């Protein structure tokens, strides 16, 4: 028992549990559905997971500070449309410039959120629900309801989604999936090895303490929203690459999917705990379930929202019972470990509440 305590934290056990659950879901569906585990299915899911996972990372950054970003879906829509429009006008725009342009657009929208939330001290739920509507309305007005179509886009954009960097027996490693992996790795490192990352946890863990701790807590919350916007912009570019046709409602509901992904992935809505890997696994879980359930024909597409909703509820319920229990056991184990090593007088100072 002592070994488990030393090696894994309750949060890590939760991630392992989620991995197991994903495998279980795949096994169950492959029994239920003929030809379930095809390369084609994997390839399709890999690109749709990529977008949700990037947004889930964005959502994780603000979730860690006890905030929300409800405007992500609109940020994706606005970026995808404007980038698509510019590519239609200037077909020879360099791909790198295009991506930077997309990230910049997202950053701009994230900056608006961040300034109002971090420095204006308005709760994020109020600000981002407003900007969710404002960014979307801007898009409706700006586009005059004229969609971007695949036919007018430069060929590289349309083909980018199909390009496989590595193919193993039909399984393709597509560009969007690779972008996602890079983002997940970067932010996993940011969250566990950068001072900035640790302070995100600190702020969510105890906002009152963060105010008096003597580090720039507001700048850090601002940065979280700035990065969330930037990742939203990147996801907007990925959205354009994946779909090609962009309507004014593009990306609607993705903010909801990203929240579902992080909650399922174990990022606490009370801030302070969660990882990029968890957010990725959460994205995989919800996307896998959605796509698989459509294929059983038992669930219609109209149930999409309900499935996400139920997953959120389930994840929260499990966390409430499961993580709470584990943390208690761990705290007690920590207490036993320290006490057995030292003389009892000193152990009193180090003791944990049971």
């Amino acid at each position: 028992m002592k070994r488990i305590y030393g090696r894994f934290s309750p949060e890590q056990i939760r991630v392992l549990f989620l991995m197991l659950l994903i495998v279980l879901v795949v096994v169950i569906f492959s029994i239920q559905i003929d030809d379930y585990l095809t390369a084609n299915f994997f390839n399709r899911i890999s690109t749709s997971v990529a977008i949700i996972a990037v947004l889930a990372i964005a959502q994780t950054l603000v979730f860690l500070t006890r905030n929300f970003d409800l405007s992500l879906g609109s940020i994706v829509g606005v970026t995808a449309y404007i980038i698509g429009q510019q590519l239609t006008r200037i077909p020879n725009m360099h791909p790198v410039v295009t991506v930077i342009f997309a990230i910049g657009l997202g950053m701009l929208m994230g900056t608006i959120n961040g300034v109002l939330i971090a420095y204006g001290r308005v709760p994020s739920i109020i600000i981002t629900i407003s900007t969710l509507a404002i960014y979307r309305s801007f898009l409706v007005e700006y586009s005059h309801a004229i969609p971007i179509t695949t036919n007018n886009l430069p060929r590289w954009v349309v083909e980018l989604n199909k390009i496989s960097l590595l193919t193993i027996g039909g399984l393709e490693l597509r560009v969007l999936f690779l972008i996602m992996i890079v983002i997940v790795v970067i932010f996993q490192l940011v969250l566990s090895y950068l001072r900035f990352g640790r302070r995100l946890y600190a702020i969510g863990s105890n906002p009152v303490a963060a105010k008096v701790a003597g580090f720039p807590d507001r700048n850090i919350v601002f940065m979280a929203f700035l990065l969330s916007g930037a990742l939203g912009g990147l996801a907007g570019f990925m959205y354009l690459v994946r779909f090609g046709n962009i309507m004014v409602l593009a990306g609607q509901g993705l903010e909801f999917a990203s929240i579902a992904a992080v909650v399922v992935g174990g990022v606490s809505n009370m801030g302070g705990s969660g990882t990029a890997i968890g957010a990725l696994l959460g994205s995989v879980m919800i996307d896998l379930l959605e796509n698989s359930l459509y294929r059983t024909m038992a669930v219609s597409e109209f149930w999409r929202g309900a499935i996400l909703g139920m997953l959120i509820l389930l994840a929260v319920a499990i966390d409430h019972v499961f993580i709470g229990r584990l943390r208690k056991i761990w705290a007690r184990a920590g207490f036993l470990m320290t006490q057995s090593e030292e003389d009892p007088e000193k152990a009193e100072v180090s003791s944990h509440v049971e």
Partner: protein
Amino acid sequence: MNKRQNNNPILELENVYKSYNGVKALTDVHFDLHPGEVHALVGENGAGKSTLVKIIMGVIQTDAGSINLDGEPVKISNPQVAQDLGIAAIYQEPMVFPDLNVAENIFISHAQRGSIVKWSKMFRDAEEILGKLDVKLNVRMPARGLTVAAQQAVEIAKAISLNVRILIMDEPTSSLSAHEVEQLFKLIRALRNQGVAILFIGHRLEEVLEISDRVSVFRDGCWISTKPRDEITIDGVIRDMVGREFSEFFSKTKTERGDLLLSVRNLYKENTFHDINFDVYRGEVLVFAGLIGSHRTDVGLALFGVEPADSGEIMLEGNSYRIKSPEQALKLGIAYATEDRRHLGLTMPMSICSNISLPLLRDYLNKLGLIKRIEEEKTAEVFRKRLDIRASSVNISVENLSGGNQQKVMISKWLNTDPKLLILDEPTRGIDVGTKAEVHKMINDLTGRGIAVILISSDLPEVLAMSDRILVMREGKQMGIFEQKKAEQELIMAAAMGQNNIKQGVAL
């Protein structure tokens, strides 16, 4: 006075004024702090101690006056500036980050450690600092679940790692057990001997006298006195604090013990408490004494049905009940005033009268189901007079009241339910001497009316003065019940600390 103390103050506040929305919090205050001294600051609630701390920490700004550090005027515009100047504070409720581990908690504010976290070096450094303090903690454990004492040790380690020259401790002992207070004082003395200037705010005067080199008294936002340790007495300090002579703190007026009200037999709750047996008679005060972690509060919560017991018998007026919810307990005539006023006891933004009527709101509804505000106010007025709640109106929200007055509102709320048994959990913690005496007077008043009181208290003088009988607990176990006459501080302490050689008191 401490020999190490030199003559130049490290920190000096002159002619400081501060008011909130026109209410004066500090008026023409002077305060200074020398390196290598423990300067205690005492005063009733509302005396302006917390305001002073906030000003020094840069959380709020002065309206007028100057702050000098090493003789140079400084402007402390936010907590980060305070930190850069070498000032740190440890609050009553430690400000730790529960999700971060111990080492991270120590180093989270450090700017000069670079933006990349070097984990193994950080763990080593944390262990080194804690080692210097002679505190053993697993630096890799999350701070979640640490005791208050351990959290404070982490905060002290953090302050030391930042090379603080001024350490402010705002009521650090209020949730510590006697043993933990001793440990803390050892740390404070070690820091003082290293030349750190320590501002110590305390409510327990015995502790203040034990630890401090100088004592300053504030009253109603004004500076009253500053005297060296040798020239002061508890009586003198109290006189300065309340502005009047205080012959007797508090004592229980003897009331006739009435009929048997409550009998508890073999009460048990898994991992919490076991074999709890006691009787409570009308008009008596049964005190639950014990250290932190003795699970006294859990017995109270079980009687009130918040966290019901797993097994055992609860007999009220001869009938046996299984109390499963607070609603049921209230119907049976049991009320419970919690220790945690802010989170569990009161609805802070709501008015005094709305808070008082809350448990019995149904009685204040007219036929349409609307609240009869006039009735609510009438009730609140009755309690305002009876308990002397100091507020301009019963319609102001309770968050604007001082701690002591909040306590009175909470007790009013439960008295309004007309209880037979009132459980008071640490009713005088964190409130000033004057209000404390009023709370004790109120307890006397209640028992005089035949109400039985279970008083959960960590304050030994209070335990001895206010009790008829004392039930001592340790780690969920009932150590004995002592008659007040036979009880002494040492005996209670010995039982609470788990000494086996004490004679068991009169059982039941």
